[in-house]
C-alpha cells in the first residue's frame, strides 16, 4: 500500500507545482456552475414548480451535482490513451506495481484536491448568492448519498479506463474521449435532472449506467426516491460497476497482447 500512497502524494505535488494551471481549472468549474445557476434562477423567476422541482430543489440539484461532478467525474485516466500510444505505459509494465491500483492512487489525489476546492468554492458562492437550498436532515438519506457517491466514483473510474484502453488499437483517442464526455455529461444529469427529459430520452437514460454517477446520488439527497427504488438502484449500480470492472480487465489483457511500446 505504501508504494501506491507515494503515487498519491506525487500526484498532489504535481498539481501544486503548477498551481496557477490548477487554479485556472477551478475557475472554469466555477464559471460552469454560475452559468447553470443563473439559467435556472432565471427560469424560476416566473414559476414556482417546473418539472416537479421547486426553485430550492433545482438550485440544490445544481450545487450538489457541481460538487459531485468534480470528484466523481474528475479523473487522471484522461491521458491514458496518449500514454499507450507514445509508449509511456512501458514504465508501469516493467515495475512491480499494479496498473489499476496506480491509477486509483492518482485518482484519489485528484479527487482529494478537487473535493477540498469544490467545498470551499461552493461555500463561498452560497454565502455570496444566498440561494434558497433544500437541506437534507435525514441521516439515512445522507448515508445513502455517500454510499452511492462512492459507487459512482468506482463506476466512472472503470468506464474511463475502458475509453483510455482504446489507445491499444487506435492512435486517435480524442474523438471517442470527447464523445464519451458528451454522453456522460448528458446522461449523468450534469446538465439537467434526468426526469426533465422527454419520454424516449428518459427511458434510454434509465438503461444506461451514467445516471448513477450524478443524478442518482442527487435524487437520494433531495428525497425524490423511495427506499425500495434506492436499494434497487444501488444493486443495479453495483452490477454496472462489477460489469465494467470485468470488461476493463478483459480489455486490458487483450490490449497488452497487442501493445507495441512505440517510441520506447
Amino acid at each position, binding site marked *: 500500500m505504501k508504494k501506491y500512497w507515494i503515487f498519491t502524494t506525487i500526484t498532489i505535488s504535481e498539481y501544486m507545482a503548477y498551481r496557477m494551471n490548477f487554479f485556472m481549472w477551478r475557475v472554469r468549474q466555477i464559471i460552469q456552475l454560475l452559468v447553470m445557476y443563473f439559467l435556472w434562477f432565471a427560469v424560476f423567476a416566473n414559476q414556482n414548480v417546473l418539472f416537479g422541482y421547486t426553485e430550492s430543489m433545482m438550485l440544490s440539484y445544481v450545487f450538489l451535482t457541481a460538487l459531485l461532478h468534480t470528484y466523481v467525474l474528475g479523473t487522471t485516466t484522461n491521458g491514458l490513451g496518449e500514454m499507450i500510444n507514445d509508449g509511456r505505459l512501458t514504465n508501469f509494465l516493467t515495475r512491480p506495481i499494479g496498473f489499476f491500483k496506480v491509477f486509483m492512487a492518482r485518482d484519489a489525489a485528484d479527487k482529494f484536491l478537487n473535493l477540498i476546492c469544490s467545498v470551499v468554492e461552493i461555500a463561498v458562492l452560497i454565502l455570496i448568492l444566498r440561494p434558497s437550498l433544500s437541506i437534507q436532515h435525514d441521516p439515512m438519506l445522507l448515508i445513502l448519498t455517500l454510499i452511492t457517491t462512492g459507487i459512482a466514483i468506482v463506476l466512472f473510474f472503470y468506464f474511463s479506463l475502458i475509453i483510455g484502453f482504446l489507445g491499444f488499437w487506435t492512435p486517435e483517442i480524442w474523438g471517442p474521449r470527447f464523445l464519451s464526455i*458528451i454522453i456522460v455529461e448528458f446522461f449523468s444529469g450534469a446538465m439537467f435532472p434526468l426526469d426533465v427529459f422527454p419520454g424516449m430520452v428518459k427511458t434510454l437514460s434509465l438503461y444506461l449506467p451514467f445516471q448513477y454517477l450524478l443524478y442518482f446520488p442527487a435524487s437520494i439527497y433531495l428525497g425524490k426516491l423511495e427506499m425500495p427504488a434506492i436499494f434497487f438502484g444501488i444493486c443495479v449500480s453495483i452490477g454496472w460497476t462489477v460489469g465494467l470492472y470485468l470488461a476493463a480487465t478483459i480489455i486490458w489483457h487483450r490490449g497488452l497482447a497487442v501493445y507495441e511500446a512505440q517510441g520506447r
Partner: protein
Amino acid sequence: MKQYIRVYGKLVSMNVSSLLAFRSAFIANLISSTAWASFTFFSIFLLTANVPVLFGWVRDQVIFLSAIYAVYYGLFQVLFAKNFGQLAVLIDNGELDGFFLKPIDAQFLTSLSRIGVTASIRIPMGIGFMYFFGRQLGVTLSLQHGIFFVVSLCCSLLLLYSVWMNILLCLIWNPRLSNLVEVLFTVSGMSRYPSEMYKATSEVLMYALLPLTLTTVVPVKLLFGTVSWQEYVLLVGLTLVFFITTRIFWLFATRFYTSASN
C-alpha cells in the same frame, strides 16, 4: 496580400489532406462535433420547453440566438480554435521558433495554420435552425440587412479572435497555464445566452462580458430589426480596438518569447 491568400489556400488543402489520411479519426471527430452541436440545441429546447419567456426573450428568439451562436462559433472553431489550442503547446514546448523563421507573418501563421474541418458541421445545423425559427419569427432579410448582418458576423468573429489572442499571449510569460484555453472555451460559451441574463445578476459582470455578449446579440437583434445604431457601432468599434490591440500586444509579447526547449 496575394501571397497570404495563396499560402492560406495551401494550408487549407494540407489540413484537408491530413484529415482524410486518417479517415477513422475524421469520422470519430465528425460524430463528436455533431453530437456536441445536437446536445447543445437539445439543451436549449429542453430548457425553454416550459418557459415561454426567458429574460425578455421568447422561446423562438432564444433558440434563434443559439442558432446564430452555432454558426459564428462554428466558424471560430473551424478557423481559429485549433490554432489557439496549439499555441499553448507551442509556447510551452518552445516550438514557436519555426513560425518566426518562415518568410511570412508569424501571427498569421499561428492563427490560421490549422483548420478544424469537423467543427464545420455546426454551421449548416445552425443555418438550418436559423432558417426554421427565423421563418417562425417572421424574420425577413433585405440586401441591406444581409450586408449589415454579414459585417456584424465578421466583426463578432474578429472580436472573439482578438479577445482569445490577447489573453493567450499571456502564456508567453507563464507557459504552464494550458488550462487557460479551457477557461476561454467556457467563457465563450456564455455568449450563447441572452446578455440580459448577466445584467440581471450584476451590471459589472455584464460589462466585463460585454465583448463576448455583443458577438451574438447584435447580429440577432439586427435580424429582428431591434438593434440600435449604438450597439452596432459599439460592436464595430470594439472589434477595431481589440484587433489593433491584439497586433500591438503580439509584437510586444513575442519579444519576451524564449525558446527554452530548443
